[in-house]
């Protein structure tokens, strides 16, 4: 091949190589931009069969089976959305509605809906009012199940902060036969210690003990862990304040606090990691990604976990 031939062949090759590198880079960057900027697409979020009547026709009368299918879909849908840190759960309510329309006695569906319709995204659909309606519907069809009253009270207390309505629901629960003994104490708890961390802890503990659904159990457990962390942080920050009052300075390390007799050892969070002392006596967790739901102890500039992360999975495994 002559010299000119080499150059001619190479010029096209060279130009296309440059274009290739540039355009591939540009398209990868655009793909990234699109990912970031695009509002979340409710992709494939269509319920082709929206009315129970249509589903009943299609299922040839096997409504129980159809209910199970929609129930499974609802749980999967929630799981996927939660993993995707979604802010929209458009189909959760229609899926649950369909499920209980097909089988009005599917109590787990009401329980599931009670928590996950009510909780704020990305832990739920953030629709506490719809959750209340949904559970009321469950109570209407299953008036003898104490757990539904309990869930109603739960939403009223935790999500809507309507302590009176909560107390009312718990009272109704204690009227139903077969309710556990601890239920009797709930109405009083509502009226005496409303808004307390301790009350929330009791509610979540009962939820944890009684949950039959794995997602609900995990959720309750992580709530309890978060309450624990919040509690620890409040307690420890009180101690650093005491230290500051005594010495005029905030402590720099736990050792000073131990030396001052305020602590017996280095305090650790539920994952076993020591708490960290930040400026001005603030106490923070080492890794907020481990603790969804915490409201205190979040290092400045960081966020609590938006969903159940690998780290919080470890907590669940260890418990």
């Amino acid at each position, binding site marked *: 091949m002559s010299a000119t031939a080499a150059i001619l*062949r190479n010029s*096209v*090759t060279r130009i*296309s*190589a440059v*274009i*290739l590198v540039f*355009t*591939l880079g*540009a*398209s*990868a960057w*655009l*793909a*990234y*931009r*699109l*990912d970031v*900027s*695009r*509002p979340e*697409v*409710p*992709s*494939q*979020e*269509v319920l*082709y*069969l*929206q*009315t129970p*009547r*249509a589903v009943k026709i*299609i299922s040839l009368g096997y409504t129980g089976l159809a209910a199970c299918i929609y129930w499974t879909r609802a749980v999967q849908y929630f799981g996927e959305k939660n*993993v*995707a840190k979604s802010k929209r759960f458009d189909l959760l309510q229609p899926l649950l509605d369909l499920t209980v329309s097909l089988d009005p006695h599917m109590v787990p569906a009401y329980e599931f809906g009670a928590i996950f319709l009510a909780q704020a995204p990305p832990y739920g659909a953030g629709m506490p009012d719809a959750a209340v309606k949904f559970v009321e519907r469950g109570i209407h069809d299953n008036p003898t199940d104490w757990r539904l009253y309990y869930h109603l009270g739960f939403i009223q207390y935790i999500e809507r902060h309507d302590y009176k309505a909560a107390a009312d629901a718990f009272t109704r629960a204690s009227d139903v036969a077969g309710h556990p003994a601890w239920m009797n104490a709930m109405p009083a708890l509502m009226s005496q210690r409303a808004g307390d961390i301790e009350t929330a802890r009791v509610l979540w503990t009962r939820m944890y003990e009684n949950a039959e659904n794995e997602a609900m159990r995990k959720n309750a457990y992580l709530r309890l862990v978060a309450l624990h962390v919040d509690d620890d942080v409040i307690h420890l920050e009180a101690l650093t304040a005491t230290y500051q009052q005594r010495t005029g300075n905030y402590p720099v390390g736990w050792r000073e606090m131990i030396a001052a007799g305020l602590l017996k050892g280095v305090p650790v969070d539920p994952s076993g990691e020591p708490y960290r002392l930040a400026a001005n006596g603030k106490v923070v967790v080492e890794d907020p990604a481990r603790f969804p739901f915490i409201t205190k102890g979040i290092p400045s500039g960081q966020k609590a976990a938006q969903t159940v992360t*690998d780290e919080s999975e470890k907590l669940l495994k260890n418990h």
Partner: protein
Amino acid sequence: MTTSRIGHIAYNTFREAVRDRVLYNLIFFALLLLASTPLFGKISIGLERIVLVNLGLTAVTIFGMLISIFIGIGLVSKEIDKKTLYTVLSRPVRRWEFILGKYFGLGLTLLVNTFFMAVGFLAALLYIAHGFQRSDVQLLGALYFIMLQFMVIIAITLLFSSFSSPMLSALFAFGYFVIGNFAEELRGAANLLDGVSRAIVLGISYLVPNFTAMNVISQVAHSEGITGALLLQNSLYAIFYSAAALSAAILIFENRDLK
């Protein structure tokens, strides 16, 4: 001269496609499916429009994709088998002009096909909705995005057919289409991994065509708007990605011995 040669190759490619029976079979099935979508609509009470838009636009996407791949894979290899490429390249036609001509020719074919399928789709919509509403303009946006997907798919098909057999090209291109629709899920999966494997999967997820962002079918089914920014970004993305695939095709084809 270069542009006129590219234009002639494009026109001849288009002419080949419209004289091919495979094309009409595919269009026939697409229109048949579109004609039957009102029936699907009837099943889901009160949802006709949403179901029709979803099914109709999905049908347009899938049939267009099939047309792109089936016609695209043979574009280069057929010309080599029949030795027609030899008579083309022994003229003042450069190899890259040939590739670009083929690309635009197939693009034109798809544009015309998509137009007819879109007309069929809108006719079906008119039949069940008895009229158009203002938000139906969004449907045109969705169709535009579908066309953008075709332009990307064609470029990819052309890339594969510039070095491999038609069968392999078809498999590659189809696989690419599927992966492209799961690009976002791939990124989600990457986030669950760590270290090197995470970097690799994440890298791949950004290099495969991102069709997810171009798929606004379910949004427009719910009459949700397409933003101007999305329009711009998707257009740029399709242009860049097609250009990347085409320059890779040219890179390979320029240096290939035509045995």
